[in-house]
């Protein structure tokens, strides 16, 4: 016989059931109540990211990554983003590019009957046109993603990267200024105007990134796999985008 009532099997099972129901309800309640606020935050963050690559940000020092405040993001987005385009198959249409989730598109595209939708944001700031495309790929531990702004000549005007769970101090540094700013001015086409992407290269020996035509930026020590992930997602997505972007640019001339 169990000495205490809390030792009996029946008590243990009842306790477990009650605990699961109580904790489950509390978590479900919390998740449901907070969901609208959280998705609103995520929407603003996406706007802040897109605006960041076209230089609409509050960076002051050399190391800051400061977005414009979330409550101004909506207005600024309407002001600077002049056109949203959706590429699907060979067709390019104006539409709601903002709500396209690349992760979902990748899953849908596994079905061969589905043509992946690719969003393009056309921004204008100080007479300069920005063709902003999203990127998505794999880091060491989890997803990495980013936005790149290109000009008419396929030169990078701004880049922003983020990650779900790269190692702090190593792979997580892809979202630091010194890494992201290296991409600015870098060409994604090689000398013969073929697609080359931008490789995150070890042994590049160009810490100040003075060579803008070499299709390479300096890697971060100790984060080879995250860096390779960045190279891979740039190659994968920009390769898909380039023919369409050229069409968009030619039509707008």
């Amino acid at each position: 016989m169990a000495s205490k009532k809390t030792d009996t099997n029946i008590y243990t099972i009842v306790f477990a059931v009650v605990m699961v129901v109580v904790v489950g309800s509390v978590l479900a309640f919390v998740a449901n109540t907070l969901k609208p606020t959280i998705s609103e935050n995520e929407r603003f963050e996406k706007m802040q990211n897109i605006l960041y690559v076209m230089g609409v940000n509050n960076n002051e020092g050399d190391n800051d990554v400061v977005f414009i405040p979330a409550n101004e993001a909506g207005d600024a987005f309407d002001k600077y983003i002049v056109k949203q385009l959706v590429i699907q198959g060979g067709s390019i249409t104006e539409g709601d590019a903002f709500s396209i989730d690349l992760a979902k598109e990748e899953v849908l595209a596994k079905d061969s009957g589905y043509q992946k939708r690719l969003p393009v944001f056309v921004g204008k700031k100080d007479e300069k046109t920005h063709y902003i495309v999203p990127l998505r790929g794999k880091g060491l531990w989890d997803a990495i993603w980013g936005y790149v702004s290109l000009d008419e000549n396929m030169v990078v005007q701004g880049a922003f990267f983020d990650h779900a769970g790269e190692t702090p101090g190593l792979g997580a540094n892809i979202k630091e200024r010194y890494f992201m700013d290296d991409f600015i001015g870098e060409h994604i086409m090689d000398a013969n105007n073929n697609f080359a992407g931008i490789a995150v290269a070890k042994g590049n020996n160009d810490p100040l990134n003075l060579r803008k035509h070499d299709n390479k930026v300096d890697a971060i020590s100790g984060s080879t796999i995250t860096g390779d992930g960045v190279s891979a997602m740039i190659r994968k997505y920009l390769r898909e985008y380039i023919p369409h972007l050229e069409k968009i640019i030619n039509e707008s001339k």
Partner: protein
Amino acid sequence: MALLSKKDRGLLLDPLADNNPITVQVLGICSALAITAQLKASVVMAVSVIAVLAMGNVVISLIRNIIPSKIRIIVQLVVVAALVIVVDQVLKAYSYELSKQLSVFIGLIITNCIIMGRFEAFALANKPWPSFLDGIGNASGYGLILVIVGFFRELLGSGTLFGHQVLGDPIAKTGLYAIGYENNGFMLLSPMALIVVGIIIWVQRARNPKLIEEN
């Protein structure tokens, strides 16, 4: 009359030095390796663990008499996991920037053995108030070591503190770098955290011989 009784003060202060969870009990090493490459990350992790351990200890202590002993570990896991999820969601909703910075740390808290250790060793057998103090004390002891390790790893590995360059600019060769100093890239790798922790243990035991085991 002190604010806390002698016993309560002991609960709060012992884990900072003579009974430190990392250097004396050697718990929580995994997260101490993972996140101490930067000082900021160490501070953030320390604060998160203090919050979760204090709350968790109180919750476990409140229900200590009704927990069936057969499944107590599961109950502890559920409590800490639920707390962490709630904290994560609330941060995401009301302090989105902060939650972005914390990203992986929130999840890492669940796996911290100090938390389960304190639930099992203390909160299950004590009243809520002492458990609360014990939680704050142990988490602070853990945080203290994290900050010390983070300080040395970031300073020697990247030449920065909280992301500010304190030793000069390694690329433009100013400050210390002008006279040939180089950052030690090894400091950024996890094994160096273990070596720094080892040095802290060495210093602590050299100063306090009663910590040395006799065998």
